[in-house]
């Protein structure tokens, strides 16, 4: 009988896998109450490091061509496909669903990632415009990436929610901090492994596991986070986030649909430029 080598679940910050600087971990049990793992419990300093990494990666990632971003996102899907079995096993264990339900979720998650990969070079065709102003001016509106966006993805189906939160945010050039589901965190770290091996520049995505409650207040208060996907938060936490986030007018949104270009455009800014037309 072979003893398997169990995975250690650490944080994903700036392309590396550190433990929490606080040294804390928390226990995750499977759906039957059996011990699964001790993932790191992210601290406020860990979050700070995530923001520094995400901010540092922003100019490179938003400055890359849309084609390049699309290629990299598609590559992530290629790597995820190769890790399907691991994702399935983790979902079965954590969520207590059947293997076939887990397979379906993993397939949908990968396909959702591909869906968003295909948006990078199309979003400005549908959300940009040339505006027929009443004067001799060329006037165009161009959507631009917002900056650093935090994503709270919680609840079942945990992998799918995570992907639906993360992919649209980075497709447009934002950099992200994913706060994994407190109850089902393991898929987030396996996702991090896929991200780390697919040409995604360090810092574009950073992933924290830990206790949602404390993380919500720290995210809300951090003045260098520009936007939040709060789809995974309950009403009380959402209110808390909005009150704290008002300080730097964070763009805070929640979504119901998995596939929607609104998940991309909500985390973009529109810039309108005027230029005279004259000889």
């Amino acid at each position, binding site marked *: 009988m072979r003893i398997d080598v169990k995975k250690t679940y650490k944080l994903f910050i700036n392309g590396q896998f550190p433990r929490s600087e606080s040294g804390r971990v928390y226990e995750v049990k499977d759906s039957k109450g059996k011990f699964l793992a001790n993932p790191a419990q992210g601290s406020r300093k860990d979050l700070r490091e995530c923001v520094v990494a995400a901010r540092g990666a922003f100019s490179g990632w938003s400055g890359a061509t*849309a*084609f390049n971003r*699309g*290629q990299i996102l*598609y590559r992530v899907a290629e790597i995820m496909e190769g890790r399907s079995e691991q994702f399935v096993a983790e979902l079965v264990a954590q969520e207590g669903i059947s293997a076939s339900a887990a397979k379906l979720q993993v397939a949908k998650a990968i*396909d959702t990632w*591909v*869906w968003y*990969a*295909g*948006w*990078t*070079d*199309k979003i400005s*065709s*549908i959300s940009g415009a040339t505006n027929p102003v009443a004067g001799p001016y*060329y006037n165009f509106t161009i959507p631009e990436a917002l900056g650093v966006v935090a994503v709270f993805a919680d609840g079942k189906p945990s992998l799918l929610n995570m992907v639906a939160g993360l992919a649209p945010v980075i497709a447009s050039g934002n950099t992200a901090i994913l706060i994994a589901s407190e109850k089902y965190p393991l898929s987030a770290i396996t996702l991090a492994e896929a991200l780390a091996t697919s040409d995604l520049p360090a810092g574009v995505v950073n992933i924290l596991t830990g206790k949602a409650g404390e993380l919500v207040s720290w995210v809300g208060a951090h003045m260098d986070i520009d936007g939040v996907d709060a789809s995974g938060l309950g009403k009380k936490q959402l209110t808390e986030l909005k009150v704290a986030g008002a300080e730097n007018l964070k763009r805070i949104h929640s979504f119901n649909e998995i596939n929607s*270009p609104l998940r991309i455009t909500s985390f973009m800014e529109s810039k309108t430029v005027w*230029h*005279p*037309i*004259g*000889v």
Partner: protein
Amino acid sequence: MNERQVSKFEYAPAPESTSIVNIKSEYGLFINGKFIAPKAGKRFVTINPATEEVLSKVAYADLADVNLAVNAARSAFTKTWSKMPPAERGKYLFRIARILQERAREFAVLETLDNGKPIRESRDTDIPLAAAHFFYHAGWADKLSHAGMGANPKPIGVVGQIIPWNFPLLMLAWKIAPALATGNTVVLKPAETTPLTALLFAEVCQQAGLPAGVVNIITGDGVTGSHLVNHPGIDKIAFTGSTGVGKAIARAIADTNKSATLELGGKAANIVFEDAAIDEAVEGIVNGIFFNQGHVCCAGSRLLVQENVQDEVIEKLKRRMSLIRIGNPLDKNTDLGAINSAAQLARIREISDSGDLEGAERWSPECELPKAGFWYPPTIFTGVSQSHRIARDEIFGPVLSVLTFRTPQEAIEKANNTPYGLSAGVWSDKGSRILWTAQRLRAGVIWTNTFNKFDATSPFGGYKESGWGREGGRHGLAGYLKAGN
């Protein structure tokens, strides 16, 4: 070494190896997912225009073969492709894009052998753009409701596609990618002189597991093409080629329900204002007419230079032209390759000679042309006026006609004074002047302070007799969709 002695920096031959390609001695037709022999067993050769050596024998598709191909496309449309969830369709296209990237070098070498264009261009331009075109369109397959064509647009059905010899694989990508992404199936006929990369593409379709019949590739000539155009099983024609043939197609389908997109000829004006960044404008002029040996529908074949900077521009242009390296297309340092065929060379000569006869002044740098193959030196004619044949007829070769203008208004008038309207170039350092000029030019693609730039996201197509419809970008999807319910 003596200080003042000029040391010539000769670039030694730097040939790209051909060992990466494996050209078969003969090819069949790619119908319903397999290569099959043509019904009548007829074949024709394809040669390397730089050496006139025979590369291979390809099949000649006659009416029976066209029939088979169209039926295969129809069957695949009805039974498989139109029923497939759009996301899955998209994934096939992603696979094709990735395989093209993997086999990029092989495709580049093959394209250069069959077409005659420099390896640098097939390697750095043609093949990457083709792969990117598939990648871009793969992402549209499951997003068509966002394309501005209605809530639930539908494919047209079976599309007949006829492409030219100047950018064989790229033109194939421009046709097949949007057609498949939008749910159509295709029968594509590559040009007579450049079938090989299309046939290699058929292998890529097999490697990608594309369902049989979704893409069919039939080689042949103009007669094959007309069988395709006239076939009742074809719902739409997509054609890139000469304006003459485009008009013939329009007439041929007039009493049918078939739609068509046509990408035809051009005689683009490349306008250089006095305040242009002169060195970069000269690069743009050279790129505009000598890229791909001038075998470009959107080539900047008429230089319209503001009279007060004419001397400086022409002098720099001639100096720059003398740096153009013409020769073995497989050499990585070659800038100008072979003319694609004896027929095309004859056409170039005939129209250019009219320039001499009509009184324009010809100039070419000294260059040594290889003995075998089809070659034409980079050439400019100065003292050209609008009424000269070389200012009106598309030469489709490395020949530039130089005209002048005094005022911006005159530049506009001369630029627009043509039945064509595919493209134009504008060179100026003043933003408002650029926009003013772009606003007034009647052309579908306007390059400002650049030229010959292509991107999958950027719609391409012409005004007036340069054609119908656009390819690429969101706008390019329209030709392959009809409003659904």
